[in-house]
């Protein structure tokens, strides 16, 4: 492996890339939360304005974006547990790479059925098997 250039702390590999993904997913979820509190606040305006905006969440494209949101939250949540283990478990730093691979397996195992359930209605509406 080539030596990292002097003057940077970035070392690549599992450690850095999981950190990068943790940042990106965190910032994305934070911006979604801002929008989500505003749309939920419409329950205080009127039932019809709330229902109108919630309809947007049920449309096919936004439904797909919701799967992206769930993926971002799920990664951030699982990787957060890994960070806590690195910080507080004495062997945490030693096994940080192994924990990342376990985390990625869990991520796929949990996300696939969740995405299936979330997209089922949209798929049935789009491809006509909805009754």
């Amino acid at each position: 492996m080539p030596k990292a250039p002097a003057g940077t702390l970035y070392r690549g590999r599992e450690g850095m890339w999981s950190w990068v993904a943790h940042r990106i997913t965190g910032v994305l979820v934070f911006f979604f939360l801002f929008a989500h509190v505003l749309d939920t606040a419409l329950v205080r305006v009127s039932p019809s304005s709330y229902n109108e905006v919630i309809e947007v969440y049920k449309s096919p494209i936004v439904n797909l974006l919701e799967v992206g949101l769930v993926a971002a939250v799920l990664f951030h949540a699982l990787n957060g547990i890994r960070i806590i283990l690195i910080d507080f478990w004495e062997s945490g730093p030693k096994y940080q790479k192994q924990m990342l691979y376990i985390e990625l397996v869990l991520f796929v195992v949990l996300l696939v059925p969740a995405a299936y359930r979330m997209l089922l209605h949209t798929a049935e509406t789009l491809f006509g098997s909805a009754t």
Partner: protein
Amino acid sequence: MATAAAPSGRGAPELVAPELVAPRSPQRRTKPGAAKVRSNFELYAWVFMRISGLLLFFLVLGHLFIMNILDGGVQRVNFGFVAGRWASPFWRLWDLVMLLLAELHGTNGLRTVINDYAERAQTRFWLKMLLYTSAFLVVTLGTLVIFTFDPDL
């Protein structure tokens, strides 16, 4: 940011190893005309991120599971659904704790990101003012909505 010292004179630049302070070490803030202030704020922020993160793991994943996956998912959500949930103090408390922890966790996360990437002191200051203003609005609005919700609106 790890920066090497500026080249002195015309010759080859001096190579100086970046000076690194351990993360979360107490900050020494020197105010003009005041004694040195030592603060453990960064340590408390670090502890808060871990405690709130652990709680949010269950609160947020539970919320996503109920709202997006359980019986019908988002397709069944409307004003009546919200009214039914918020008739129970349990779900109001769940949503309130989740709102406060998530907004504070996210605000502290973005504070870290701003400190890392905004290099000018003025830019850092104004980005953080914008961040804290938005956090105040979100917390206030969200809390108000949870407490004043009226199912007969």
